[in-house]
């Protein structure tokens, strides 16, 4: 297996007024292609910041983040945006669906960033919604769906562009046990069947248990487990 | 306590508060502006004196009356003094330079119009110069004229080129007095007419007379018109204010559309304020729920929201009044000569402030009702 994520000596410092807050301290981490990794740790441990670095949402203060062969720390903002649209799929705790768009349109959203014909788009959207088991909810708006269903739409949105990495930030944090189970099952399935590399931040040990590897962050340093 | 809450709430969204105040201010100033335009239209009516009546040809103002009517008018009971004037309608350099020019009988005219004050030595100089002129102070300022300057006019009714020498300036004793008129000798006009159209001499545009008792005006007017009934030139006599008003009603269509627009403006103030208040109130739903939970009465919430709306509107009104002045002055420069006087009246300012405050209170009421009757449980739920 090849290394898809390579993090070397990553540090992140925030400045708030005169105070300096070092959130990440010289992190080194490699993730193999097709891996399912759970990042755990108490709040304030820096796990979300690390996730943001991997997703190309935030830039490191020092160190290198190389993902799929691209050195993220060298990219400017619009390059990062373009890179994200091709390589990363996002799953958020609060789903973050556009309330004004239907399930179908929400899944379609990232496809607007890629040049595709209408037919190709339609095919991909239907496939993604089928994979998450919601082919009959396409024309529903988010507020007409349950939390679990909304998160499944969000997962469909994350995989519709066929990214190599899926980044999930507390994907089950806002869900009941049954829905959470469904979501985790979907993620495991996409990891196994489609070979997606998944990085999941969670503090639910049960959710973390479904991943291959668990890593703990505490006060900005990584403890492999 | 409530004052503190209102004051802090108003500027919680600084940008929004500033924008709202600005929006209200702009609407208030345009309201003031349009009202000023409407007032300017009526300036002639306002300047009228209740003891003056105007006699003109019954056909229309464009037709003259014979000079011989002067004696007849003077002999009418209740009439004190009679004077006359002709509209000259000359052009000074460019047709855009509009101002009123009247050929007058000098002595009687200034007796009938005591509000036009001329210094005695200047009056003497004017009386001595056949082609002299007396001009309003404002008019002289507008074109930079001084006593002794020669003003050339091109006649549009009385054709030819006319040169007048300014012999004096007049000042209005009342604020409403029009200080933009150009007066010259009727005799001079008549002499020139005799050269071109000898058949048309001795014509007077209209007569103005003072009467001893304003309450008698209607009867006096009727008496004069009856006297000239079936004569060669029938007359139409009315009070000076009715005469002036007839000019205003000619453009009544324009004035009424302006009035409509001024109400539209009030609607706009309402929209801007209501928009902000609805938005703020909705964002603070959970806070209102907390306040109610603490045991405050709905009246407190009313006072809070309406108070905030009133504060916004009064700040807007204040700023609006301040910017009304430059706007009005700018417009006065642009249309300059169109109105003899273009001043913002106190009434306009008061009307603008009252309208804004009423609108301010009204725009607060709708969101206040919603907030005051809010179900606490629903409101609190928004907190999470």
């Amino acid at each position: 297996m090849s290394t898809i994520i390579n993090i070397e000596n990553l540090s992140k410092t925030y400045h708030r007024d005169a105070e300096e807050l070092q959130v990440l301290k010289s992190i080194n981490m490699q993730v193999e292609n097709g891996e399912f990794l759970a990042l755990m740790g108490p709040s304030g441990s820096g796990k979300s910041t690390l996730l943001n670095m991997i997703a190309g949402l935030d830039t490191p203060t020092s160190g290198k983040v190389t993902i799929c062969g691209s050195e993220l720390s060298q990219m400017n903002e619009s390059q990062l945006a373009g890179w994200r649209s091709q390589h990363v799929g996002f799953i958020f705790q609060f789903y973050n669906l556009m309330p004004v768009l239907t399930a179908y349109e929400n899944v379609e959203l990232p496809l607007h960033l890629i040049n595709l014909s209408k037919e190709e788009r339609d095919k991909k959207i239907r496939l993604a919604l089928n994979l998450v088991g919601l082919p009959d909810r396409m024309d529903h708006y988010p507020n007409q769906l349950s939390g679990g269903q909304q998160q499944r739409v969000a997962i469909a949105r994350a995989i519709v562009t066929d990214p190599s990495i899926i980044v999930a930030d507390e994907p089950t944090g806002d869900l009941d046990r049954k829905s959470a189970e469904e979501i985790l099952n979907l993620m495991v399935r996409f990891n196994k069947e489609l070979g997606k590399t998944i990085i999941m931040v969670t503090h639910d040990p049960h959710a973390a248990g479904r991943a291959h590897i668990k890593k703990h962050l505490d006060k900005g340093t990584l403890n492999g487990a | 306590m409530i004052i503190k809450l209102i004051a802090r709430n108003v500027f919680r969204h600084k940008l929004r508060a500033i924008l709202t105040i600005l929006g209200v201010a702009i609407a208030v100033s345009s309201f003031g502006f349009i009202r000023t335009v409407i007032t300017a239209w009526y300036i002639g009516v306002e300047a009228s004196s209740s003891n003056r009546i105007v006699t003109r040809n019954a056909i229309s103002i464009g037709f003259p009356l014979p000079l011989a009517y002067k004696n007849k008018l003077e002999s009418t009971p209740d009439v004190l003094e009679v004077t006359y004037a002709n509209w000259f309608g000359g052009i000074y350099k460019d047709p855009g330079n509009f101002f009123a020019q009247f050929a007058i009988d000098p002595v009687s005219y200034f007796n009938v119009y005591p509000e036009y004050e001329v210094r005695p030595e200047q009056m003497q100089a004017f009386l001595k110069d056949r082609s002299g002129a007396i001009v309003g102070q404002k008019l002289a300022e507008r074109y930079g004229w001084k006593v002794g300057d020669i003003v050339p006019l091109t006649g549009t009714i009385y054709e030819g080129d006319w040169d007048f020498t300014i012999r004096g300036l007049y000042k209005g004793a009342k604020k409403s007095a029009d200080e933009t008129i150009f007066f010259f000798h009727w005799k001079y006009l008549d002499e020139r007419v005799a050269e071109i159209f000898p058949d048309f001499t001795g014509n007077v545009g209209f007569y103005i007379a003072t009467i001893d008792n304003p309450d008698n005006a209607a009867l006096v007017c009727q008496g004069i018109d009856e006297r000239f009934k079936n004569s060669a030139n029938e007359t139409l006599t009315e009070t000076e204010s009715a005469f002036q008003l007839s000019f205003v009603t000619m453009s009544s269509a324009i004035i009424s559309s302006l009035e409509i627009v001024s109400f539209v403006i009030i609607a706009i103030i309402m929209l801007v304020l209501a928009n902000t208040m609805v938005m703020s109130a909705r964002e603070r739903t959970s806070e209102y729920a907390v306040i109610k939970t603490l045991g405050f009465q709905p009246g407190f919430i009313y006072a809070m929201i309406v108070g905030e709306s009133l504060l916004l509107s009064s700040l807007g009104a204040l700023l609006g009044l301040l910017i009304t002045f430059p706007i009005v002055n700018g417009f006065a420069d642009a249309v300059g000569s169109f109105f003899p006087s273009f001043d913002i009246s106190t009434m306009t300012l008061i009307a603008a402030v009252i309208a804004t405050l009423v609108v301010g209170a009204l725009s607060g009421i709708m969101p206040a009702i919603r907030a005051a009757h809010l179900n606490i449980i629903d409101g609190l739920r928004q907190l999470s």
Partner: protein
Amino acid sequence: MKLPLNYSAKSLFVRKTTTIVTIFGISLVSFVYAAVLMLSGGIKETLVQTGSPDNAIIIQRSSITETTSSLTRDHANILKSYPGIARNAEGRLIATPEVMVIVNLKKKDSDDMVNAPLRGTETNVFDLRQNVKLIEGRMFTPGTSEIVVGAAARRNYEQCKIGDKLFFGKREWNVVGVFDAGRTGFDSEVWGDTEQFMQAFRRPLYSSMTVKLTDQEAFENYQALADNDKRLRVDVKQEQQFYADQSENIAGFIRILGTVVTTIFSIGAIIGAMITMYAAVANRTREIGTLQALGFSRKSILLGFLIESSLLAMIGGLIGLLVASGLSQFSISTVNFDSFSEMEFRFSLTTETITNVLLFALFMGFSGGFLPAVRAARLKVVDALRSV
């Protein structure tokens, strides 16, 4: 890399109240702007159409209106003797000296008086003014107290139906016909026999003479002849120009007033749109963060919000325009400051007005939306995602 249009469009209707309020505000401003353009356009149109391109009007030198101008019979004869005047089918010169006076008539359904323009003319006037047609009754008989009235005159003045009697110049006049002069100043006039009017008003002078010329070249010749004739002191003007000049003051006044009012209003509307769009950005911070995370660039987010506010404004503009287009059914009758006579104007809706109003609405939406859109685009993705 564009945000889908339906995202912008649908987002507008999430916040129904403020969106509707803002649209209403913009439509009010667009309406006022459209009304002003339509009115000043209508005034211009009316006065320009009053003149015919081949006609020349001769008035006393420096006179601005016909009512203040005088020409003697001798002058008229001299003016008829110049070459270049067209002839009608019977071979008669098309040259009509006319007398123009203003009389006070009662306004319909009101106690107000109007300055009604009265034109003494000849029965062959239709050769001169081919856009004027008799639509009811018949032409007046020369030498009698018969008159015909324009369609707008019949609409706006009391006692102007066929069979009615009008009283002016110490005589009674019988209305025997109605003519339609389209959207021209003539439509508000009352026409009768020149000689009869001269007698009634004891004014043995013409006001003006209008001639139909054979062609454009003839006009210049004709003008030069009149200018150089020592017996005359007159101005020769193209009829169209003459009437167009009379629209300058009133159309200019309405335009300036209207511009001031709409400028002030539009600032108000821009502020309204700004408040709405700022609130939209604030409420959708997390949505914006998500869009950025998905890979939408700052530029496309900026564009998305600009499109949203432009859409808002376009809807407002269209509503304003739609309501204003209803105005073209109406006309207003008012005094023209230049000629001091009553004239009926219509609100005229041209494609130019439509484009101007829509562009103006777009401008309001764009300016109102720009700063909020910049704020949206500048949100930091990490912070935006964290916002509730």
